[in-house]
């Protein structure tokens, strides 16, 4: 367990160094949040359409999306990508640790640290401004559990993204697709309940809702906290499936590496 904890800590510290980026990130998200909030307000204000979420809920959803934006798997790990492309990844094999776990721990830290940094000030501001109406204590507890699961899920996806780089060109293609799908189907672009009704079954099935939609709706109480077990099962089920897939993919990549001599 120790080497994985060490990686987490080291990564965390490295990510804290970028001071200006941290401040700018906050400003960026604030801005984006405002834009999207205004767009949705404009849609709601001038329409009498029936909607599965009321405007307060959508606004809260938008702000939660900004706060936890960094949870979404954006791309493969850049340092690891470099290692793979140059073939130096062979050195990673020299370490006495399970490579997937090593990379997975790293991915968890990479998701967790920046998200934590950026979410707290944004959440404070959004709450103070009255943009987020939190659900009760059970809802928040459920939401936090879902966020933890979301982190594990997201790390699994981004680790897979890193592994696809072993197949460079097609890997990059898959990653770009995965990123787009992650953002879109997690509700970051349009809150999932607002999509046409015929799409809902698909949206509920896919893993991506576990990255954003699920924790957000729990936190604001739009989904009752009682539904947590089912939702958690969905998130963790997909996480496990993706981890298993990732491990299999990595084995294939390693085999390819050894055959090709790196």
């Amino acid at each position, binding site marked *: 367990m120790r080497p994985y904890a060490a990686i987490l*800590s080291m990564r*965390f*510290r490295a990510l*804290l*160094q970028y*001071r200006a980026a*941290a401040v700018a990130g906050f400003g960026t998200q604030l801005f984006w949040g405002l834009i999207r909030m205004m767009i949705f307000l404009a849609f709601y204000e001038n329409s009498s359409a029936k909607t599965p979420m009321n405007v307060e809920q959508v606004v809260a959803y938008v702000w939660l999306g900004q706060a936890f934006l960094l949870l979404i798997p954006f791309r493969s790990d850049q340092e690891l990508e470099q290692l793979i492309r140059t073939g130096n990844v062979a050195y990673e094999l020299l370490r006495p640790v399970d490579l997937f776990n090593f990379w997975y721990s790293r991915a968890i830290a990479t998701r967790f640290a920046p998200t934590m940094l950026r979410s707290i000030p944004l959440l404070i501001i959004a709450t103070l401004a009255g943009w987020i109406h939190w659900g009760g204590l059970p809802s928040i507890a459920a939401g936090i559990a879902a966020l933890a699961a979301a982190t594990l899920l997201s790390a699994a996806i981004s680790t897979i993204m890193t592994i696809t780089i072993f197949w460079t060109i097609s890997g990059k293609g898959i990653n770009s697709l995965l990123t787009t799908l992650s953002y879109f189907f997690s509700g970051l672009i349009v809150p999932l309940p607002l999509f046409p009704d015929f799409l809902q079954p698909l949206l509920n099935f896919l893993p991506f809702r576990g990255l954003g939609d699920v924790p957000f709706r729990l936190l604001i109480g739009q989904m009752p906290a009682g539904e947590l077990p089912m939702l958690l099962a969905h998130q963790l089920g997909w996480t496990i499936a993706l981890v298993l897939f990732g491990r299999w993919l990595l084995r294939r990549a390693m085999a390819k590496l050894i055959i090709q001599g790196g």
Partner: protein
Amino acid sequence: MPQIVVEKLVKTFHVAERTPGLWGAFAGLVKRRHRIVTALNGVSFSLEAGELLGYIGPNGAGKSTTVKILSGILVPDSGNVEVLGLNPWKSRIKVVRKIGVVFGQRTQLWWDLPVIESFDLLREIYRIPQDQYMSNKNELVELLNLSVLLDTPVRQLSLGQRMRCDLAAALLHSPEIVYLDEPTIGLDAVSKLAVRDFIKKLNRERRVTIILTTHDMDDIEALCNRVLVINEGNILTDGTLANLRKMVTTERRLTVVLVNEDGDITDPDAEVISREGRYVTLRFDPESIPPAELIARIVANHEISDLFVENPPIEEVIAKIYGSAAR
């Protein structure tokens, strides 16, 4: 009329400091500490056209800062510089048109392009008239043996090949002054000689003024009549190599090759400073005993198969100069 005049250059830098550890990382988010570093502390010198100046000093002494100011990249805090009658940082474009700069560690050529295409691009950048370009290019290609390399992408060249191409590239526009920053660093022996030879030709035959920054003392000994030693922003010495030596020591070295490996050399006026198998090196002061006399005495008293007299290695001389300045 000196071609380059440097007067009382002063340049300081602000360097950010970081505190280690996790707490330091958080603290760093809030406040940064700065350190002021004086790179140049009133540097002055001047060069006539056609001089070849060796510019030496330990790392961080201020050499690159000087070169950057001379080429207009950097503006000093105070002081004055005139290159070909112009102020480099005020008239950047006019000045860089007439100078060439080669950095030993960074190429100016385009990494993915064949060498000849880099040259072509430079022709357009410097607006070199076609006939001047052709004649310069052909001459440089011949002098530096580049004809087989012209179609090779720069990234595929060895260090020695790349340096020769970089030298050519810097001269395509017929600059009157050239700054060479560590041009022989990392090169194999053959390439070093080729580069040195080229630099010598450039200076002696084409009268190009050259400032050569280097850590390689063989470069200095082979090429420079005049040497400028800088340390911690201050010029320590400015003069010929011979004077430099004299400043530190008049000592000379005598290396003797014994016939018998277990022989021994003793002499009242010379001190043994090293011994390797049959090679014994002694040091002596030619002002207390003339070399001829010492040699005669040693040959008379010992069985010698060969001997030679040398100056102390220039590295030692320089190190002594840095050292005495530190005190």
